[in-house]
């Protein structure tokens, strides 16, 4: 009971910090800038854009998650809040979950909601919007959890953003592969879902939700000085 109350408070606090800190706007701006740049790069031909849209959306989202990672633990490390996280009456693993959940709710979820809209700019079939969101919602927890491992490993490193990207990208390959697979089905036959790919994606997400927090907590402990 006490653990749940502590975690709820931590979640609410983090959510408020994300909101007050204005961390969402840059990520959203990044997403729309990327979407706008794509037709310039590959040409404004609508049929081509429609064919490439699933992969583009998926990669843009992955980069948005990567971009958002550096504030996950870095700020707490610098201002001493990370120390206080260790002194909480709950296990660090739980605190990590609460923090990541807030990050997910405060940044990733809004990005997810706007991404299909951004996809319309890439000529996505309107009927595909819901399947696209379902796919991304299934895969996003894995992206955030795996990203958390990289962010925690690089927590004590100055200018850690690039290092985090280097560490995290190989971990993202399975997620991005199955996500893109599910997306391509959803977009080629509007209104359908690729149950196999979604199932594997859900499996990966579930596994990371259980396995990543201990790794993140261990990485944060290793980063203490």
């Amino acid at each position: 009971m006490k653990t749940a109350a502590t975690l709820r408070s931590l979640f609410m606090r983090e959510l408020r910090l994300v909101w007050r800190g204005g961390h969402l706007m840059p990520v959203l701006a990044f997403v729309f800038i990327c979407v706008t740049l794509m037709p310039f790069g590959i040409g404004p031909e609508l049929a081509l854009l429609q064919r490439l849209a699933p992969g583009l959306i998926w990669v843009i989202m992955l980069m948005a998650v990567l971009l958002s990672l550096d504030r996950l633990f870095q700020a707490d490390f610098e201002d001493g809040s990370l120390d206080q996280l260790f002194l909480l009456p709950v296990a660090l693993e739980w605190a990590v979950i609460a923090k990541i959940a807030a990050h997910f709710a405060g940044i990733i979820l809004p990005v997810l909601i706007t991404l299909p809209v951004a996809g319309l700019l890439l000529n996505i079939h309107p009927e595909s919007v819901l399947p696209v969101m379902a796919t991304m919602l299934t895969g996003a927890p894995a992206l955030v959890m795996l990203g958390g491992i990289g962010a925690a490993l690089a927590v004590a490193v100055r200018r850690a953003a690039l290092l985090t990207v280097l560490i995290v990208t190989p971990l993202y390959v399975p997620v991005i592969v199955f996500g893109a697979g599910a997306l391509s089905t959803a977009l080629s036959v509007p209104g359908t879902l690729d149950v196999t790919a979604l199932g594997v994606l859900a499996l990966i997400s579930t596994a990371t939700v259980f396995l990543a927090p201990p790794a993140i907590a261990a990485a944060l402990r290793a980063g203490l000085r």
Partner: protein
Amino acid sequence: MEMVKTEYFSNAEGGRLYRPDLAETVSLRAENLACARGVRVIFSDLGFALGAGEVLHVTGANGAGKTSLLRMICGLLAPAAGHVAISGVHDGRDIAPHCHYLGHADALKPTLTPRETIDYDTALFAPAMAANTDDLLTYAGLRRQADQRVATLSAGQKRRLTLTRLVGIPRPIWLMDEPYTALDNAGRKLVDTLVRAHADAGGLAIIAAHEEVGVANRQLVLGA
């Protein structure tokens, strides 16, 4: 001009200072502690025992390992050798939940207000406790600043806000790293008063500081 308030942590009627309600009193023992940084050994074979009500002043040159020692005690740093143990609590294995650590950094979030800071601290560290936020704000002399962002506070005000965590959430072990930094004379006196009240209630404190610590009854010189 408003008079500068000197007696923080006393309420409007005056005089009612911090009276901690410690559910537990503990004693602390460190044995053969060693600290290494890179390939260098900072200190080794360090041991001491502290009982309830004792205040230890840790001093020593820059880089002698004062901060590292404090962090080792609450488990924020793994010692290169040796161990720390507490007795007097039912789960003596994990020391961290019985400690307050006041570090160099204030651990404050600039975008929260002092009121929110205290509310969240209570909810996070002692979820079963009712928050006496208004009292703490008054005690800390931050009543007027209660709803402006922490970023707008002065260094001394931030320090006093950090101290409300120690006062508001009873924990028997206080680890304070240079607690007098950024504080005026009244603030310094305040720290001493709080530590004395804490010790009188059966708590123990370890204070790392360059200057004299009047409230301490034990001293440890690192690197001597």
